[in-house]
């Protein structure tokens, strides 16, 4: 371990910038966006410097730590606010700050007409700061702070245009769904503390080797719940589609660099727990497999370009989660797919933003068509991202996705064949829905609104898209050449250097199968969407109808959780009103009624007072007489 003093700048810089821009308010309107972008870029530069410094060190010394201060010291609970930059963290730092900076640059133009652009950039920086704290924390508790910060920043950004009630609701939905996952993370931390007496990654790793299987499975399951919340995995995935309410750069940031990658990071970081608990691993694989197909199916039916891409993210993160569940060899491939996905998905989201920018914020793909002629650069960058997500060689997705499919097949037995088939099927559906997006948007006939005058976006918008497109082309090859990323991450995620020596199927066969499936998917989409009606047809298959409604996930949540929850609260409120309040009101009522009756005695007539006195005396005498008798 190397002691470093520079790690704090990763978090302090964007946090400071965010606070500054928020506190200065309108005074910073003129330069706020430039400042925030420069801060984000400088964080990326520090990241690059740290990356090369890390390469200069060898073995154990590669990981760097920095103790900030003693945070909590209560009895046996000792938590330091500390940062840890190791081979895994640096991947995320570079991805977050790199893609984040590109998105900052893009947003300068995209948000130029918004009067709250400065606030937007403040939130973007807050997002970056929170996400960096998440990946740099050296204990689960530090991670948790970043985790919550990411939740807050995403809430602020998704609901950035909160003057529209639907957008504010979407932000709330994302926040609530995330809170469900957060409960999982906090429970996992509590279990880890009771079991191991510490919450640092190193301490938990040490304790995990001697812990009971039940405890490890419990921690693993809770961590998976947390990951499902942040990474929009089944069953907490419903917020992702609605999160498209935020400005498009936010979607790009959430889907590529921050937020949804947090779950993959959490599981990869906790590899020592999942490796020790096959049950937890199995759960991870199942969740990943379900989400992979779930997202892909939803993607096939969405007409909203951003929602189609969101469903695609869900599906691709499903691939990553599935890979993390495949044991020590899976983690590196999950991270590789995460990085390549970061490039091509950010590129495609920015491309979608560029299209919307030119089409008066129209998101319905049925109103697009033939845009490649008016937006050649957007079409080209989007197209490169498209080829990458399909997994066409030599684009980035080919290397990462094929590795995951291969690993899934190799995981052994029936499970391996099943998982391999699911990932293959997912690849086919991915090809179908992405081709659908391409065809509907960029080729075919014009189906524009009369008022639309599409035009290519300015340089400051297409430059980041081009940079990301280069990443979509090259990152896979670079990360895979000589198993660069696998070897790089090996000390963190695969200490025992496990590799599958025997393959169920030779890699070349897997690649050919994947490419065949992809080709079929593309062919179906191309044939099916030769003509596109402007209004979505109603007489479609049941599965399409279901997919249009997010496979009834919202209806399910509403029927199972929301309505009963509302009924429960309504019942409790009613009970409170009728029983608790009723008792209190009854006491008051009795006093009031008896008082108003007793008051009648005080009628002000001397004679009636005298009569009462006489009667009282008679009663008294009678009582005395009775007693003495």
């Amino acid at each position, binding site marked *: 371990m190397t002691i470093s003093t520079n790690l704090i700048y990763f978090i302090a810089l964007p946090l400071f910038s965010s606070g500054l821009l928020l506190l200065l308010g309108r005074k910073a309107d003129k330069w706020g966006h430039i400042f925030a972008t420069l801060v984000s870029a400088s964080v990326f530069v520090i990241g690059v410097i740290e990356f090369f410094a890390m390469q200069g060190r060898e073995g154990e010394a590669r990981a760097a730590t920095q103790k900030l201060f003693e945070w909590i010291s209560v009895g046996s609970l000792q938590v330091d606010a500390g940062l840890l930059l190791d081979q895994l963290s640096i991947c995320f730092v570079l991805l977050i700050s790199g893609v984040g900076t590109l998105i900052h640059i893009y947003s300068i133009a995209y948000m130029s007409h918004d009067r709250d652009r400065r606030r937007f950039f403040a939130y973007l920086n807050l997002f970056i700061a929170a996400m960096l704290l998440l990946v740099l924390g050296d204990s689960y508790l530090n991670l948790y702070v970043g985790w919550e910060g990411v939740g807050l920043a995403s809430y602020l950004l998704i609901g950035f245009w909160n003057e529209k009630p639907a957008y504010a609701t979407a932000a709330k939905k994302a926040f609530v769904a995330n809170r469900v996952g957060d409960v999982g993370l906090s429970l996992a931390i509590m279990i880890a503390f009771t079991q191991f007496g510490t919450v640092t990654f190193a301490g938990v790793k040490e304790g995990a080797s001697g812990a009971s299987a039940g405890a490890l499975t419990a921690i693993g399951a809770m961590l998976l719940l947390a990951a499902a919340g942040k990474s929009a995995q089944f069953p907490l995935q419903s917020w992702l589609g609605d999160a498209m309410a935020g400005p498009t750069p936010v979607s790009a940031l959430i889907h590529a660099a921050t937020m949804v990658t947090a779950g993959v990071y959490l599981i990869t970081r906790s590899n020592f727990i999942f490796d020790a608990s096959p049950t937890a691993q199995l759960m991870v694989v199942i969740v990943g497999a379900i989400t992979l197909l779930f997202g892909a199916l939803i993607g096939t039916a969405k007409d909203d370009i951003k929602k189609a891409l969101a469903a695609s993210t869900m599906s691709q993160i499903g691939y990553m989660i599935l890979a993390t569940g495949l044991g020590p060899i899976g983690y590196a491939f999950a991270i590789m797919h995460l990085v390549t996905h970061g490039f091509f998905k950010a590129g495609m989201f920015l491309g979608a933003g560029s299209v919307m920018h030119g089409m008066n914020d129209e998101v319905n793909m049925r109103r697009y068509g033939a845009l490649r002629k008016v937006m050649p650069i957007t079409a080209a960058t989007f197209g490169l991202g498209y080829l990458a997500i399909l997994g066409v060689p030599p684009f980035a997705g080919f290397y990462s996705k094929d590795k995951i499919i291969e690993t899934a097949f190799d995981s052994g037995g029936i499970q391996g064949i099943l998982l391999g088939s699911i990932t293959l099927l997912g690849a086919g559906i991915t090809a179908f829905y992405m081709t659908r997006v391409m065809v509907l948007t960029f080729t075919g006939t014009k189906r524009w609104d009369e008022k639309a005058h599409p035009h290519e976006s300015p340089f400051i918008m297409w430059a980041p898209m081009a940079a990301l497109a280069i990443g979509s082309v090259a990152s896979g090859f670079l990360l895979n050449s000589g198993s660069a990323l696998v070897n790089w991450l090996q000390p963190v995620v695969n200490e025992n250097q496990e590799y599958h020596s025997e393959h169920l199927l030779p890699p070349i066969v897997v690649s050919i199968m994947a490419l065949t499936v992809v080709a079929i998917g593309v062919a179906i989409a191309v044939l099916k969407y030769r003509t596109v009606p402007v209004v979505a047809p109603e007489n479609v298959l049941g599965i399409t109808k279901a997919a249009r409604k997010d496979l009834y996930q919202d209806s399910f949540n509403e029927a199972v959780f929301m309505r009963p929850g509302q009924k429960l609260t309504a019942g409790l409120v009613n009970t409170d009103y009728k029983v608790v309040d009723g008792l209190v009101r009854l006491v008051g009522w009795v006093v009031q009624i008896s008082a108003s009756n007793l008051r009648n005695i005080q009628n*002000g007539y001397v004679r009636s007072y005298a*009569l009462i006195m006489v009667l009282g005396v008679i009663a008294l005498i009678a009582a005395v007489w009775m007693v003495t008798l």
Partner: protein
Amino acid sequence: MDISNYIYLSAILFTIGAIGVVVRRNAIVVFMCIELMLNAANLAFVTFSRIHGNLAGQVTSFFTMVVAACEVVVGLAIIVAIYRSRRSASVDDASLLKR
């Protein structure tokens, strides 16, 4: 003559006085009824004094008379004052404290 007849007379006088206080509206009459009750009490005191051969009862009746004299002075003054201001000697009209 049986001495207990005095007690009966006292009780009857007291009852008449009490009923008069409750039933009559004229303040003067109510006042006279109160005097009647006081004197009925005096009669009872004197009678019991006689029965028990103890002077304390007779002394008490003197005290009662003195108190009754004072009470008449104050009470009549009040009645006259009320009559002057309200042109009525009815006790039912003097119910201002009620509201």
